[in-house]
């Protein structure tokens, strides 16, 4: 293991050294600006600016406009490129819990001791120094919604992080953003273990949510039962009531019932998508339909239920539950006006992580317009995740998260030539 540590240290040194070379020495000073100039700024905010300039100060976008019409602060570090777009937002990945070596020691995306574990927090498992985090960052992915993987009925929670930072706390945007669930063959078990069927999956989920509803109302009563501070009279008629014991599992689901967390359900087959919609109708929860290979066959139902889709990678394998997978699903969702974003997803083998830039490129070659494809990995996921005030587009006041390219970002032969997070150049690209 000592050898591994040495390698890691060396890499960090190289990273530090390259940053020192690339950035002006006073770059960490709060008032130093980073300026990006590009032949095209794809703002993901409704317009493209030709020959544009972006001024970043204090980690935020301070100004955006035509290069000739901009005041550039003195001593600015200037980066030039062909095309700049917002740093990309991966709407659903497991990177950081799932690691490059795919061995026990770096695979924390799925705990299989029980089918229902909404209490597992991603913050306790996310490794911000995972090599694959650095890898996707090198293509311009600056924010990830990551967490527990598909594979159990409820596998755990997710978080949202920037792809930079020494600790999870430093990277974190939102902890506990969603609870990850899986319907269909992806989470059924063999033998006499439950769930063994689709019917049983729904029965178990419904029973747990009903339990959570009851727990929620107990908590509400407890709050109501607190003595009135002015009169010091206990308004609760039931004098014998004990405080409701804490239950981490049900607390997590109460957050879902209260709309504080979304329920992310991985469901590829049409009947599993229908089940997910049934669950939303019954419990009035915020659903993110994950992967959703058959979404193309369920457009009216998804639209009627006003559901958001975290669409599988375009290049996911067309087999198993995804046998009907179509390269055109993104285009069809877009045409129907269904909110969606293209995800990197979870990979059990190779490639161990998928790059949303490449996945969106394939969608763009199969009917999704260029602008919609850019949005599907920038502002659309930011809106879905509720972080659109921070990231997802190039607009004044947002975090200075940018991806720089030497040509059309979707062309295979184009390079990412720089990645900026919070106004700092954090990668030379790929």
């Amino acid at each position, binding site marked *: 293991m000592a050898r591994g540590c040495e390698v890691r240290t060396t890499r960090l040194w190289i990273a530090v050294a390259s940053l020192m070379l690339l950035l002006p020495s006073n770059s960490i000073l709060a008032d130093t600006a980073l300026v990006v100039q590009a032949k095209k700024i794809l703002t993901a905010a409704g317009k493209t600016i030709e020959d544009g300039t972006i001024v970043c100060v204090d980690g935020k976008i301070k100004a955006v406009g035509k290069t000739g019409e901009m005041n550039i602060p003195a001593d600015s570090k200037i980066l030039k490129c062909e095309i700049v777009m917002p740093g990309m937002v991966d709407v659903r990945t497991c990177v950081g819990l799932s*690691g*490059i*070596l*795919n*061995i*026990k020691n770096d*695979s924390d*995306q*799925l*705990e*299989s001791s029980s089918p229902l574990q909404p209490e597992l927090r991603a913050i306790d498992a996310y490794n911000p120094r995972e*090599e*694959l985090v650095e*890898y*996707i960052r090198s293509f311009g992915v600056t924010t990830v919604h990551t967490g527990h*993987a598909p*594979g159990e009925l409820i596998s755990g929670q997710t978080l949202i992080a920037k792809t930079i930072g020494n600790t999870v706390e430093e990277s974190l945007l939102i902890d506990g953003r969603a609870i990850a669930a899986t319907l269909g063959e992806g989470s059924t078990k063999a033998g006499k273990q439950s769930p063994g069927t689709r019917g049983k999956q729904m029965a178990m989920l419904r029973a747990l949510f009903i339990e959570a509803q009851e727990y929620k109302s107990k908590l509400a009563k407890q709050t109501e039962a607190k003595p009135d501070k002015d009169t010091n009279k206990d308004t609760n008629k039931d004098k014998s009531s004990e405080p409701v014991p804490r239950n981490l599992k049900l607390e997590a689901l109460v957050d879902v019932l209260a709309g504080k967390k979304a329920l992310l359900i991985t469901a590829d087959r049409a009947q599993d998508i229908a089940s997910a919609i049934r669950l939303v109708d019954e419990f009035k929860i915020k659903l993110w339909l994950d992967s959703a290979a058959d979404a*193309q*066959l369920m457009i009216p139902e998804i639209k009627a239920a006003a559901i958001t889709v975290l669409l599988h990678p375009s*290049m996911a*394998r*067309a*087999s*198993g539950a*995804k*046998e*009907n*997978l*179509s*390269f*055109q699903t993104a285009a069809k969702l877009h045409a129907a006006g269904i909110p969606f974003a293209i995800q990197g997803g979870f*990979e*059990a*083998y*190779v*490639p*161990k*992580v*998928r*790059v949303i830039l*490449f996945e969106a*490129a*394939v969608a*763009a*070659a*199969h009917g999704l317009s260029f602008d919609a494809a850019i949005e599907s990995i920038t502002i659309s996921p930011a809106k879905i995740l509720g972080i659109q005030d921070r990231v997802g587009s190039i607009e004044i006041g947002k975090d200075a998260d940018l991806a720089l390219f030497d040509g059309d970002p*979707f*062309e*295979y*032969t*184009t*390079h990412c030539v720089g990645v900026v997070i919070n106004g700092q150049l954090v990668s030379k690209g790929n």
Partner: protein
Amino acid sequence: MLFHKISVAEYTLLPTMPPQSHCQNKSATLTTRRHFLAQSTTAISCAFIADRSLAQSPASSTPGASAALKPNGGAIAWFNATLLPVDKPPIPDGVLIVAGGKIKAIGSKQSTPIPSDATVIDAKGKWIMPGLVCTHSHIGGMGAADSSSPIQPGVRILDSINVRESGFRRALAGGLTTINIMPGSGHLISGQTVYCKLRYFEQSPRIVDDILIRDKQGKPIGGLKMANGTNSHGDSPFPGTRGKSAYLVREQYIKAREYQAKVAAAKDDASKLPPRDLHLESLVEAMQGKRIVHHHTHRHDDIMTVIRLSQEFGFQTVLHHVSDGWKVAKEIAAAKLPCSIIVLDSPGGKLEAKDLVFRNGRVLDEAGVRVAFHTDDGITDSRLFMRSAALAVRAGMNRDKAIAGLTLAGAEMLGLDDRIGSLTVGKDADIAILSGDPLSSYTRVLETWVEGQLAFDLSKSQDNLFAEGGLKAGSDLDPFLCCYAQAWQGGAK
């Protein structure tokens, strides 16, 4: 409709003529060179087209260039295309002529006369390249060796292939015409591979024999799949270490050598022949160069082990995957072994592949190693095979070499370069017609022709389904995860 309607007048080599008027149905997308045309040929052509119009509902498909294609029919000539012959520089405004399933002529517009009976197709804006050759695919299943032993060279994958698997049609949608169907990598020697042509026309192949590539004696051609590194490790009788892996392989090849010597000593005396051994027979074929060894290997030290063993026993080897190839490129070049590499969107998934990089192809090529790509379908999707070359070019690989890596280099690694892999006169008329540059992410495969017959046409609804995906386009099988299926459940070995 892929090819816009042309009139004779548009074909600049010809004297200006009025458009044909006696063959006016919608199928007149095909126009023959009327001033050379015998009246009877025109009549046959029109009759055939009319036939198809009756047979097909207008909504289901557009009669395309295939309309002209009858078995042993006349020549077909494409003009106005950007041609990528691969064995020669690109031809910007070229003419390609095929007939009788073979390539008859290729060249510039000026230097390539079109025969009088040819069906002429304007391919303006289109790019035409040889049908893609995938040296490593798992379409049709992987049912060769079982779990009883790590070394089973006598087992043939051709006895297991499901020719009705949708993956074959999807591969055509990626411009592939030849694939090497391989057993998996969970064994040191997992069996005999088989080289197949994707002869999926309106009538699908019925049995595996319909897609085999045969030698002059009629025998199916294939290689031998071997693997080292961790995929082929396992509980006894499988090896647990690299040293044991190499030992087990050497032991078998030594036995095969002895077997070979006994056979040679017996000469024609059947009574002196040793009992026939299918496993050893297969290894003898490998040592005689009759069966190319396709060797799965990732890590630099495993690559060196393959080189060592192939030199000891003299089997002709193609290195497959070769994730660490860039680390030992000089050594691979010195051993004169070609590499069929995989390009994946990220490194890792297992320790052996943690240093996989897009520049692998460039580094190997620049060191003098012949480089081909492969899909390892379903590890990567055959429909996106051209992407592998494009990502190598992204990392600096020479463009022409990368395109050869999808075609001619692969053909060489299968020992089929006398028949396929380039647009060369006399080779099989296996071609892919593209909407543009094969290295662009926006380019689509419009048509794929196998041995002079149209096998994929994007404008046909059924072919379009396989190209785009959708209900009934995929495979109702568990995702292909090779020997790593337990990783699906979170804990990899």
